[in-house]
């Protein structure tokens, strides 16, 4: 699943450092190169001037000889001036300073001192020779013999006369000047060569470093890309990325599921594998990046439709993705389990007909349509005559066989649009829409006729099936399904009373039951006051340790006139009469008090929980939480000792979670009370509810447990429910355990807790106390 969070950024860390390092290296190498070039250029410029002045000494030496010779001949010449130029230039060359201007030749030039050792030696030698030259010139001009000791440059001149000596010294001066100029020039060339070599080395070094860092950057990017790819390809999640031209990327898992190459799914290729009804939602996602979550179907390589739960992330603004990422996971197994549970919740397992819940739903819808269209709606309640005797004499197997045959015959007698349901036992109900009373009566007669038409062979006997049908025809317009069912029931009893094997249509005078209900309400009210209503407890066991870990509080009513009235008879009366809050509070208070007694008597462990049923009517009252808390406070019971059992239908309104019920349950849960989902598997069985509501425990309905010994399908469902509950970190209680085989099977499936007649029947508090005490005794002796 792709979560919203920091985007994937391959250049975020290592890559960015590499880029910065490359830029820094280039800047460093360039700076070194520029500094060296600038310094070398400045030095070269100075050296060029030095070379020029050094070379000029040669000319000056020559000029000096000429000036001396001219002066000797009396011609106008100024050898002294030339000598001064020679001397000053020589000094400037060696130690730096201003080299004098030469008339008609150079301007005055500033020179830096020479640092090179060889050049200095040559310039020192030049200075000596200049001195010797001027000394020779002066001796000649003054007509004196030159004292050989005054020659300083190491010459040992054997000249014929002063002029020859002058020429020789001048020649030596010129020679050494030329050499000095050459040396300086060659040093400059050498330095420039060195600089070029250094710059080549810097260039190559910079290039190599850049290549290395670039390589590191590419490698880091590849590693991250490979890492990302391996995450995506190794994931079982199915990833599609949509761009402008359709699908731009599919993960390997999608290609594997579909059984085609990835390229076949790109562009619009994926659409061939998407269910026709789901293509439009994918188109919407492609265009808008919404909805953020949806479910769609894709066919796999075996041409099966797989249900995929998709999460959409719009990354069109992210320049690295530029697309809409659809991250899906296969939820087919979950959907199938839900469908299976839903089917079982709304169908009768024995006959495959609709059950009571589905029938009520269909009837509600038919009445809603009738309210608009004014079309009549007929309900035919059918009770099989003498079925109990068949069961009792031929056994349940024969009874079941008979019921299956009856359901087939009823269906054959009706139109395909009619609904048949089995309400339980031998009670069937038929819903006819748009049917007049006459047509309905004809259809009812046809049903009776079809049932009676030929005997059913069961266990070697031929049975003739008869039925009593009570019919109510709603003329059209607004109507109450509850009322219709009650009237059909009244009519059906009238048919039985009238001798069975017949159809009776409801008439107002049949309503004696209504007054009976009024009587029951009165009796119940009195019964509550006079202590006829009591609370019994059915223990629930830890299957592994076979210890009692809780009890379910069950309300009982023993009326002096009616005898023992089962809760499914008087609870609806209490709900209808508004007595349910009083009744509920009574049960809660009783159960809480009793639990405190057990705790005080040290009969229960620290995790013992007393479970109390909460009806839909109680849940719809927001004050329930305060009532609960008030009662617990008054009897001094910790909240964690109490749990509430709610049915799925109680927390759901027309298929959607009721916010009121959710708020109440969250409140109770927050206060520390445990919540159990009762009769799980018989309602909507939406796994979504398990996530949306604060559920701690699920109670698997007894209908699954009954077949668990023999029916592999029931085993599979129970196993799925147990593993599902454990995956959601919920505990599981199996209800209605009646045999050792069922218990063993549940233990094998890892079911945590169990409840049923095999373990303990519902009993008064005193009996349960005895059970708890018996359980406690060995524990206390060992402790």
């Amino acid at each position, binding site marked *: 699943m792709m979560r919203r969070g920091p985007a994937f950024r391959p250049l975020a860390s290592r890559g960015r450092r590499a880029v910065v390092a490359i830029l820094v290296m280039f800047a460093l190498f360039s700076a070194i190169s520029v500094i060296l070039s600038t310094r070398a250029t400045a030095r070269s410029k100075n050296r060029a001037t030095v070379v020029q002045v050094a070379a000029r000494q040669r000319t000056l030496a020559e000029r000096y000889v000429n000036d001396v010779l001219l002066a000797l001949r009396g011609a106008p010449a100024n050898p002294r001036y030339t000598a001064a130029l020679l001397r000053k230039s020589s000094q400037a060359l060696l130690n730096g300073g201003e080299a004098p201007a030469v008339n008609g030749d150079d301007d005055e030039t500033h020179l830096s001192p020479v640092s090179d050792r060889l050049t200095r030696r040559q310039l020192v030698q030049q200075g000596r020779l200049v001195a010797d030259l001027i000394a020779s010139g002066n001796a000649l001009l003054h007509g004196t013999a030159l004292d*050989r000791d005054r020659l300083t440059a*190491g010459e*040992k*001149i054997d*000249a014929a006369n002063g002029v020859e000596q002058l020429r*020789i*010294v001048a020649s*030596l001066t010129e*020679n*050494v000047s030329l050499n000095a100029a050459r040396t300086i020039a060659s040093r400059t060339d050498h330095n420039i060569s060195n600089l070029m070599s250094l710059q080549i080395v810097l260039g190559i070094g910079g290039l190599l470093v850049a290549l290395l860092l670039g390589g590191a950057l590419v490698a880091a990017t590849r590693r991250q890309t490979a890492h990302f790819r391996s995450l995506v390809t190794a994931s079982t999640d199915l990833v599609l990325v949509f761009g402008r031209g359709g699908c731009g990327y599919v993960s390997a898992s999608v290609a594997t599921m579909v059984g085609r190459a990835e390229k076949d799914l790109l562009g619009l290729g994926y659409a061939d594998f998407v269910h026709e009804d789901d293509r439009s939602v994918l188109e919407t996602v492609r265009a808008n990046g919404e909805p953020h979550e949806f479910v769609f179907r894709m066919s796999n390589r075996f041409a099966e439709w797989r249900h995929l739960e998709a999460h959409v992330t719009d990354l069109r603004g992210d320049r690295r993705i530029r697309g809409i990422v659809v991250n899906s996971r296969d939820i087919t197994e979950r959907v199938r389990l839900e469908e299976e549970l839903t089917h079982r919740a709304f169908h009768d397992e024995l006959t495959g007909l609709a059950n009571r819940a589905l029938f009520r739903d269909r009837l509600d819808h038919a009445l809603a349509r009738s309210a608009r269209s004014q079309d009549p709606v007929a309900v035919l309640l059918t009770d099989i005559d003498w079925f109990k005797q068949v069961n009792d004499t031929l056994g349940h197997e024969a009874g079941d066989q008979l019921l299956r045959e009856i359901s087939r015959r009823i269906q054959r007698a009706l139109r395909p649009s009619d609904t048949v349901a089995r309400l339980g036992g031998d009670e069937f109900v038929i819903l006819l829409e748009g049917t007049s009373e006459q047509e309905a009566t004809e259809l009812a007669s046809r049903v009776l006729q079809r049932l009676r038409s030929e005997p059913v062979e069961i266990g070697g006997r031929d049975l003739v099936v008869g039925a009593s049908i009570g019919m109510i025809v709603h003329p059209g317009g607004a109507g109450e399904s509850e009322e219709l069912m009650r009237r059909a029931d009244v009519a059906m009893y009238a048919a039985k009373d009238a001798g069975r094997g017949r159809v009776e249509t409801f008439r107002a005078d049949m309503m004696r039951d209504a007054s009976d209900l009024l009587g029951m309400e009165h009796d119940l009210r009195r019964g509550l006051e006079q202590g006829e209503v009591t609370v019994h407890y059915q223990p629930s066991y830890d299957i592994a340790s076979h210890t009692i870990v809780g009890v379910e509080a069950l309300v009982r009513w023993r009326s002096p006139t009616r005898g023992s009235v089962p809760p499914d008879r008087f609870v609806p009366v209490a709900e209808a009469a508004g007595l349910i809050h009083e009744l509920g509070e009574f049960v809660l208070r009783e159960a809480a008090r009793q639990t405190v007694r057990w705790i005080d008597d040290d009969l229960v462990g620290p995790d013992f929980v007393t479970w109390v049923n909460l009806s839909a009517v109680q849940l719809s009252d927001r004050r329930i939480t305060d009532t609960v808390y008030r009662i617990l406070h008054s009897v001094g019971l910790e909240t964690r000792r109490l749990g509430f059992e709610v049915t799925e239908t109680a927390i759901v309104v027309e298929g959607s979670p009721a916010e009121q019920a959710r708020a109440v349950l969250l409140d109770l849960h927050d206060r520390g009370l445990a919540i159990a989902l009762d009769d799980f598997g018989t309602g909507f069985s939406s796994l979504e509810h398990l996530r949306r509501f604060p559920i701690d425990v699920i109670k698997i309905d007894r209908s699954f447990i009954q077949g668990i010994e023999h029916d592999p399908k029931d085993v599979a469902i129970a196993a799925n429910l147990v593993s599902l509950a454990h995956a959601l970190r919920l505990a599981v209680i199996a209800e209605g355990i009646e045999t050792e085989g069922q218990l063993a099977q549940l233990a094998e499936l890892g079911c945590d807790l169990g409840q049923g007649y095999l373990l303990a029947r519902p009993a008064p508090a005193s009996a349960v106390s005895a059970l708890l005490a018996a359980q406690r005794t060995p524990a206390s002796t060992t402790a």
Partner: protein
Amino acid sequence: MVACCAGLLALGTPIAAGAAVRHHGPSHSANVEERDFHITAPTRLPAGAVVLRVENKGPDDHELLVVRTGARTLPLRSDGVTVDEDRLEPQLAGVLEAGQPGSLRTLRLHLRPGHYEMFCNMSGHYLGGMHARFVVHR
């Protein structure tokens, strides 16, 4: 003048010792030092193959020419400051081109017995004192 010569002699003694002839293997070798402006070299060398190890102790560039001659002075060119090498061509025993200060070069010679003179012919150097005579004996 005398003092100058005495100074030169005083300096020449250790240098002459450093320029002693060595007899190693089939050819003889000898050290020659060039300075501004004189040459220090052995005055006697054996006939046959001789290798001169010529070191320029500068500071100027110097070349080295070896001629077989008995004359006291060498003929000059018309410039009056360099030796006329063309006229000495038949007597030329060997030549080393100009070497930079600090350079050490070798000159291979095959010498016949007789009188020889070595000198530097850079402008003015010969007349400035850069020449040395030696005798080749059998």
